[in-house]
């Protein structure tokens, strides 16, 4: 191959694609689609393609090889399997197909030749024709393509060069061009600005969002303050914060100065037994404490529990961001091996090398700290305040882990998303710096959030039946953080996020129709594209993948929607009411103490505190607290087990999930970190995607029965609850019937043509399992109850009328406010009645 000819070749190759794109854009229905079956995003163009390529499937995908066509666009490396179904041109764009990888995720491109391996850089030239193309990704995936002898050599070389040239080498400035490649087209911008937010989760963006959470937790005595509405009090805090009712905003304002970055103690969560979880930054020490200040500070800190506050110092036992970064980079190196030389740690040194990364130690220390806090909260009626110097890293980890352990709601997908939104996104975790998207601030880089995900995975792997979300969800979240596309992660705090969205022009506010149809070239629009939140999973992944985010049938016991705040049914709680009001203890290294300088305003001997406040009791209450903490230690000892973990007994849903933290009980998240170890892939599911695990199959069956039950009960009593089950089916039918059925949704079709963005698919993704996991409707056996309407639509007119009538009802209900659709899972109780 002559290298000189390549550039010209490439240019020629590109032209038809652009033309194709233009053509397809001029059509009303069809979005850009490559002739080989790649569904391009609006504005995305194929730079290069190679045919007869085989992709190596991971264990999870069922192993083996899959043949198809490989594409490289400005945005991604896409792979379309040979016999994949024709993409639906009318469906909403999905950023990544099941086999795709975004260019920004790629870290290294390696080719394997007849007897050599070579790292390909934008400037390298190959002296051999690669047989294999290996993409090492930042999210620890390794994607391997095998070129067939039938793949034309020119294509092999071209696509390798193209990928090497266009993938985003880590350098400042590449992020924006990547964002533009993905989201920068006019259509995409338009599409994004018309997206609706997921209404099943709490975004914590408004006062009412916070109030909703207060209500959900049954937290009384707290209010939402908008004193930071313009970020004048604290730049890194969210617009709204929750503080004690009795503290007025005017009083509150004076407190900000006493804390690092103005991050005053704020309410995060209330345990159903009546304890509150707070978080705050460290005290500003060299500041004079006015008498009034002290009163306010004490009020804020003690919250609604006038008696007892435990300050949990997070710095001492937990890893620093730098520790985490070092551990993670070691873990990466260990799991991926030395990429260019394909040298990896010898197998017999694997365990000790894994240990020396300290990653598992750090996971364990976070879980341990969170367990301690969870046990304290369980004791009831005290305030636990997490304190960290800047309150933006480990306190995010610990506060959210505590909630995952204690609050079943946080173990559902939407509950977990709300949790991350509350404790990370809104609380000002510096995602932007910690992920270091621009590769311009290595010293700040630290995957704190990934450590948190690992901790959650540890809990999930020890208590799989207590989670509604799955490790597929955690994995998707893990991978998404490496994509510089999401508003959730591309800022360090709410203020930055707001700034950015203000800078976006007003021209992309929701409009009906393709306004910019006449300017197909406006992808060169200079303004930044609007960034979607990471929670817009429909945009990122296919339905097939999204369906795996949750367990098909939610775990029992059913999650109660509202905690009443006073679940004080536990008789053995050693009530700490005898405590003198105003005691503060420090929890550090598993022991309680009350150092004199814990609260700076109390330590100043001559300060006004002495005069107006009686001295708080010293260590009298330490034993009581230690007893609480012992509950945590009880998992280390046998007696507790017989009483707390009877598998048959009714589980207290708020009993914290305390993980076992012995060395042998800490697992390595192989499905995440060892995805790339191609040479050693165990198949945890030997029977591949076509044969799901029997538990999944049974769960699907139960779901089907449940649906059928719902259906049958509608038939008889027309209870409104069936509405939840129906839209999903109609949703599935939408695609199914566009080809042959003309009777379905006659009104909906033109509407969706006119305003495709008005109709995001009803957000019932979490539960619509039978439609995606089951066999295609055509081959559905008659014994499948849920398929009744699908199968029926082609057989008897009698059913048509029924279906039609029914679906139009659901249309009418769903479209104006699709987000009102209840989670079908909440159906359970109503069925039982």
């Amino acid at each position, binding site marked *: 191959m002559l290298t000189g000819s390549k550039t010209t070749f490439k240019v020629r190759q590109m032209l038809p694609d652009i033309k194709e794109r233009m053509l397809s854009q001029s059509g009303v229905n069809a979005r850009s689609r490559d002739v080989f079956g790649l569904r391009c995003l609006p504005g995305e163009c194929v730079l290069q393609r190679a045919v007869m390529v085989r992709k190596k499937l991971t264990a999870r995908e069922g192993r083996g090889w899959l043949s198809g066509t490989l594409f490289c666009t400005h945005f991604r490396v896409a792979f379309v399997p040979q016999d994949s179904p024709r993409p639906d041109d009318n469906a909403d764009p999905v950023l990544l197909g099941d086999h795709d990888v975004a260019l920004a995720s790629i870290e290294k491109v390696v080719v394997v030749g007849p007897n050599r391996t070579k790292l390909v850089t934008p400037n390298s030239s190959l002296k051999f024709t690669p047989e294999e193309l290996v993409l090492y990704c930042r999210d620890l995936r390794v994607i391997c393509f095998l070129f067939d002898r039938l793949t034309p050599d020119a294509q092999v070389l071209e696509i390798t060069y193209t990928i090497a040239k266009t993938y985003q080498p880590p350098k400042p400035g590449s992020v924006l061009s990547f964002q533009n490649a993905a989201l920068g087209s006019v259509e995409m911008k338009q599409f994004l600005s018309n997206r609706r937010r997921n209404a099943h989760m709490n975004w914590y963006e408004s006062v009412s969002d916070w109030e909703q959470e207060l209500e959900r937790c049954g937290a009384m005595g707290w209010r939402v303050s908008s004193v930071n509405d313009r970020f004048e009090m604290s730049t890194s805090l969210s617009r709204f914060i929750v503080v004690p009712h009795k503290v007025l905003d005017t009083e509150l304002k004076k407190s900000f100065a006493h804390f690092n970055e103005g991050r005053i103690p704020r309410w995060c969560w209330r345990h159903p037994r009546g304890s509150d979880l707070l978080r705050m930054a460290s005290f500003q020490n060299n500041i004079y404490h006015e008498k009034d200040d002290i009163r306010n500070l004490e009020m804020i800190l003690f919250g609604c529990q006038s008696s007892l506050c435990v300050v949990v110092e997070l710095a001492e036992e937990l890893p620093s961001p730098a520790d985490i970064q070092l551990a993670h980079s070691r873990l990466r190196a260990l799991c991926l091996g030395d990429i260019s030389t394909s040298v990896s740690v010898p197998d017999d040194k694997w365990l000790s090398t894994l240990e020396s990364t300290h990653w598992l130690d750090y996971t364990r220390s976070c879980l341990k700290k969170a367990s301690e806090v969870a046990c304290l909260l369980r004791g009831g009626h005290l305030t636990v305040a997490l304190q960290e110097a800047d309150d933006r890293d480990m306190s995010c980890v610990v506060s959210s882990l505590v909630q995952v352990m204690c609050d079943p709601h946080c173990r559902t997908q939407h509950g977990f998303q709300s949790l991350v939104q509350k404790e990370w996104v809104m609380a000002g975790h510096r995602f932007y710096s910690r992920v270091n998207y621009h590769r311009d601030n290595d010293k700040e880089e630290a995957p704190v959030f990934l450590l948190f995900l690992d901790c959650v995975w540890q809990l999930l792997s020890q208590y799989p039946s207590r989670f509604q979300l799955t490790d597929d969800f955690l994995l998707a979240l893990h991978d998404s953080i490496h994509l510089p596309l999401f508003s959730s992660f591309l800022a360090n705090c709410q203020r930055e996020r707001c700034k950015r969205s203000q800078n976006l022009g007003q021209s992309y506010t929701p409009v009906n129709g393709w306004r910019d149809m006449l300017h197909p070239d406006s992808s060169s629009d200079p303004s930044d594209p609007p960034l979607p939140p990471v929670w817009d999973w429909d945009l990122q992944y296919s339905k097939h993948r999204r369906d795996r985010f949750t367990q098909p049938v939610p775990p029992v016991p059913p999650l109660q929607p509202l905690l009443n705040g006073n679940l004080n049914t536990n008789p053995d709680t050693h009530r700490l009411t005898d405590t003198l009001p105003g005691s503060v203890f420090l929890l550090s290294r598993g022991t309680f103490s009350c150092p004199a300088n814990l609260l700076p305003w109390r330590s100043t001997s001559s300060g006004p505190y002495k005069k107006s406040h009686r001295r708080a009791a010293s260590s009298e209450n330490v034993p009581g607290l230690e007893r609480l903490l012992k509950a945590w230690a009880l998992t280390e000892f046998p007696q507790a*087990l017989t009483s707390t973990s009877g598998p048959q007994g009714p589980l207290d849903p708020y009993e914290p999930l305390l993980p076992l933290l012995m060395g*042998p009980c800490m697992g390595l998240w192989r499905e995440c970190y060892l995805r790339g170890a191609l040479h050693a892939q165990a198949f945890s599911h030997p029977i591949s995607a076509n044969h799901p695990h029997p*538990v999944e199959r*049974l769960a699907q069956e139960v779901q089907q029965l449940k649906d059928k039950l719902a259906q049958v009960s509608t038939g008889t009593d027309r209870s409104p609850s069936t509405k939840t089950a129906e839209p999903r089916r109609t949703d599935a039918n939408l695609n199914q019937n566009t080809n042959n059925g003309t009777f379905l949704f006659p009104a909906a079709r033109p509407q969706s043509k006119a305003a495709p963005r008005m109709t995001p698919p009803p957000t019932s993704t979490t539960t619509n399992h039978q439609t995606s996991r089951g066999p295609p409707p055509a081959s559905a056996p008659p*014994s499948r109850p849920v398929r009744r309407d699908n199968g029926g639509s082609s057989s008897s007119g009698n059913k048509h009328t029924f279906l039609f009538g029914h679906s139009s009802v659901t249309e009418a209900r769903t479209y104006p406010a699709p987000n009102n659709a209840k989670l079908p899972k909440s159906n359970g109780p109503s069925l039982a009645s």
Partner: protein
Amino acid sequence: MASPISVYNSNALDTHISSTSRESLKMELLADVSLLPGEDRIIDKDIIYICPFNGAVKGKVLITNYRLYFKSSDADVAVMLDVPLGAISRVEKMGGASSRGENSYGLDITCKDMRNLRFALKQEGHSRRDIFELLFKYAFPLSHSLPLFAYVTQEKYEESGWNIYKPMEEFRRQGLPNNKWRITFINKNYELCDTYPTVLAVPFKSKEEDLKRVAAFRSRGRIPVLSWIHRENQAVIVRCSQPLVGMSGKRNKDDERYLDMIREANDTPKLTIYDARPNVNAVANKATGGGYEGDEYQNAELIFLDIQNIHVMRESLKKLKDIVYPNVEESHWLSSLESTHWLEHVKLVLSGAIQVADKVSSGNSVVVHCSDGWDRTAQLTSLAMLMLDSHYRTLRGFQVLIEKEWISFGHKFASRIGHGDKNHADQDRSPIFVQFIDCVWQMTKQFPTAFEFNERLLLTILDHLYSCRFGTFLYNCENARDQHEVRSKAVSLWSLVNSKMDIYLNPFYTPESGRVLYPVASMRHLELWVTYYIRWNPRIQQQQQSPVEQRYKELLALRDEYLKKLEELQLSDSSPSSRLANSSTPNTSSTSSTPSQQYTHLQTPL
């Protein structure tokens, strides 16, 4: 099974009615022990169990001719121990009459199943003398001319587990004899080889005299015989012991010709001989008259699998015990685990078996041996067969596999375990079979749906490997078993297992015949079998109920509930919804069938 226990229970109660109220209160502690038929109380005593997890626990110990049973008298600390005496490897006195310190006088018991027990007694009046002597006697009956408990027990089961494995049936299942392989009874009196079974499969062309001449050249007469044949490609797994090459490099034309006959049977171009040992060990064995097949063997290749000998394995497991019992080494868990090399040995055994299985499934016959062909060889052949043949992955098939490759082919269980023998330091003891079960467990972890049996079966097998309650694992070979009339006088473990199969079944089992399982033998994917090796740690016990299994049960219950409701609804409302009834007829009919039928019925279309 259930009735004799209750009889014995009531007996136990009867004996204590006469005692004083205070006594009876204490005795009640032990009243709930369900003794086996034939099990007799020997002694009971107040004692302090020095629990490594709870500290000293007061209670009562009962010793029978089968078990050591302890129960705490303090209601707050519910500690219970139930240890078959067979699991005891060593009993020692701890401290003396003059020892100072609390609880310093008592007994120290080392068990074969990864735990140690310590009991303290009152220092006055030689209080431990009787219990020590009785324990010593009944824990090591063979050293005291007493019968093993397996000969004493009166347990009865409907099905006799001794019938689970019939060599001829198993050969027939594999399609033998055929025109390449014949069955020989040359060893029916254990004259050819005293550690082999009586029924052997050998190449069709080989003559009985050939076999005798080959036996003379193979260590302990363990000639190459067929273990397994691949139904489609007719490739075979043949097992044997090392050739007696010796320092002088002896040759034996008959042995060479015999191996070539094995090769010819399915026209394998090159016979692969897997020597399980490390190369150096094989060379060293020449000094003691052994060795390995050299270049004189035409059309054969020799591959060493680098698996260490029984002594290395024993020391490795001992190191593992040190880091998990009583306390788990916390500070450097992973590197401590690595330094035991246990997982590495497991890996080598597994990867050896993978190589064997891979060769055979690609149509090449293999010969497997180590030194004597009863330790590593048994591990390799049985694991390879487990990978190749889905029959062995069923509950009964697995029993056949163990009976065949381990018990009948003469794995020296008596020497390796030391049943009823006081000589705890015997150099012949080694956890080879435990290691095999560990390998099986690793496979079940990597293929959670491929095995019909569950982890509980593996744990039960290992428990009764030591317990001496069943005849299954007693003695070194068939010959010895015949002499001691094990089959007629003792009960088979499989009688117990098959009498309550449901608790040993893996709910996730999905039969898939004809699929070769290749586990990943890499440290990156092997795990320590925590629920076996660390199961005495109370923190681990909590995890014993598999959460996935629990969830499965929940789902099953939920499904049955829904099915019932559905049925009720459809019954109550047959009139207005002809439309619905119409569409759901197939389902209605299946609702009436049993849940399990319903399940399979629904799933077949997938």
